[in-house]
């Protein structure tokens, strides 16, 4: 994931020395092993795929139910992450709130926290007997575990930090003087954010959203712990793959192929914007 080639005449790039030199083996060998390590499992998936029975495997309604649920939940979780995460990133990058470094550390914690732990934590807070969940249940009759909303919450919990970090990085890289100029011209802070900052960091938001979406799509641990597993309601693709592996490995491979295809499609769709090589 590197930036697209510079198109504007900004700061001139440092001239690169291109000398035809042999690649040293201590770098080449581990690099090739690393490449094989990343690619071989995917090749294995394609080799072992039950191609003849694939149409039959994929025509079952459960597959599409799980895929549909996965796409809906991942997209909803990304939307939630954007609505809450972009302002949070702005708060971290542009204001001097007390204890900002602590807040920043707390925001990034779900990034390093094992997702299952996140699921347990969510259950203890938003579960029917949880600190907040109990109140939600008695006041609104609202229970979140074992619902599709629960899946979205679990996914947003693990995915949002990716967006926040990405957007905060974009904000720090963006020149605050544009906002200051807007302010001197009479724009309120909110207007400056809306009209100046947002367009400026749009690529960062986009990159963060993609990361968050991909993370949400693959989310397993927090989902199965907090939202449980029920086809059509909370059984997303990763859960379906995991369960199918116990009963029918061929079905698991078929489901995995679908997820692989989705991932490749997403990467291909983004190639132009974020994945072009410099």
């Amino acid at each position, binding site marked *: 994931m*590197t930036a697209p080639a510079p198109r504007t005449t900004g700061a001139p790039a440092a001239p690169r020395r291109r000398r035809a030199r042999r690649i040293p083996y201590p770098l080449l060998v581990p690099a090739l092993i690393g490449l094989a390590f990343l690619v071989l499992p995917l090749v294995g998936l394609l080799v072992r795929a039950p191609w003849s029975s694939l149409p039959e495997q994929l025509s079952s309604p459960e597959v599409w139910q799980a895929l549909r649920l996965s796409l809906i939940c991942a997209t909803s979780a990304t939307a939630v992450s954007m609505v809450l995460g972009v302002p949070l990133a702005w708060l971290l990058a542009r204001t001097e709130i007390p204890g900002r470094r602590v807040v920043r550390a707390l925001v990034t914690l779900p990034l390093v926290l094992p997702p299952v732990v996140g699921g347990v934590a969510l259950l203890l807070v938003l579960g029917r007997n949880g600190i907040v969940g109990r109140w939600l249940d008695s006041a609104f009759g609202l229970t979140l575990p074992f619902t599709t909303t629960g899946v979205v919450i679990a996914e947003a919990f693990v995915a949002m930090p990716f967006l926040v970090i990405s957007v905060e990085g974009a904000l720090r890289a963006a020149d605050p003087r544009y906002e200051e100029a807007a302010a001197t011209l009479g724009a309120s802070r909110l207007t400056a954010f809306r009209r100046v900052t947002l367009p400026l960091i749009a690529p960062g938001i986009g990159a963060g959203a993609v990361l968050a979406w991909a993370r949400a799509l693959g989310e397993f641990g927090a989902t199965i712990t907090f939202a449980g597993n*029920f086809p059509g309601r909370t059984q997303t693709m990763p859960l379906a793959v995991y369960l199918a*592996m116990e009963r029918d490995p061929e079905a698991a491979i078929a489901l995995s192929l679908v997820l692989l295809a989705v991932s490749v499609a997403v990467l291909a769709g983004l190639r132009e914007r974020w994945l072009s090589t410099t």
Partner: protein
Amino acid sequence: MSSIRRRTALAAASVLALAAGLTACGSDAATPAASSAPSAAGSSAAAPKATGAVTVFAAASLKETFTELGKKFEAANPGAKVTFNFGGSSALAQSINSGAPADVFAAASPATMKTVTDAKGADSSKVFVRNTLAIAVPKGNPKHITGLKDLSGVKVALCAKEVPCGSAAVTALAAGAVALTPVTLEQDVKGALTKVELGEVDASLVYKTDVKADAAKIDGVDFPEADKAVNDYPIAALTKAPNATGAAAFVAYIQSDEAKQLLTAAGFQAP
């Protein structure tokens, strides 16, 4: 502008790299690094006693009894160390068939054991106990559940039909002509049990032995249809056992009178 983009993309890339590492270790909970047996070189012919590491894959419902039996087995066989991997029988069978280094497999249903014997993972198996279902409810039975019929109106956790407790639940519900939509299908019986313990569901169908083992935290309700869904528990020494002597010794021990007593006390029935 380009430098902004580049930095953004770089930040994103580093986050992605980190993410890849995280997701990689997120979901494989099954296979424990079974410390391979320091094989009792040559001495196996002389002494029938087990030595070295014995790795036992056992159905989640056997957790309490097997843990205790493992300690007794170790006491009777100095030099032997029993390591357990408890989980849903079908997940365990799958990892055995995929080459997980296990010596003994104890499943909660013959059908699951059959997937291992069919794959030549074990030559033969022997049923050592039977188990029946019960309804687990939170302490005090707040929803006043007296039988299967009462489950249709409350939040219920069942085992997924892939695992033996799930298929037994399907049979029992069919026998009682009760149609219900559970809120979740758990990977093993302990998962269904903890959902009751946490109060997240009002009831779940688990084994009688699970209710007994967890009596301090939950209550159990017996129901007549359970007799229609009795699960046989087979045990087998695996053909690819790294510690074959240890495997045979453990399988024999589980069928000993001492083990039988403990299993019966825990609520299991004799086959």
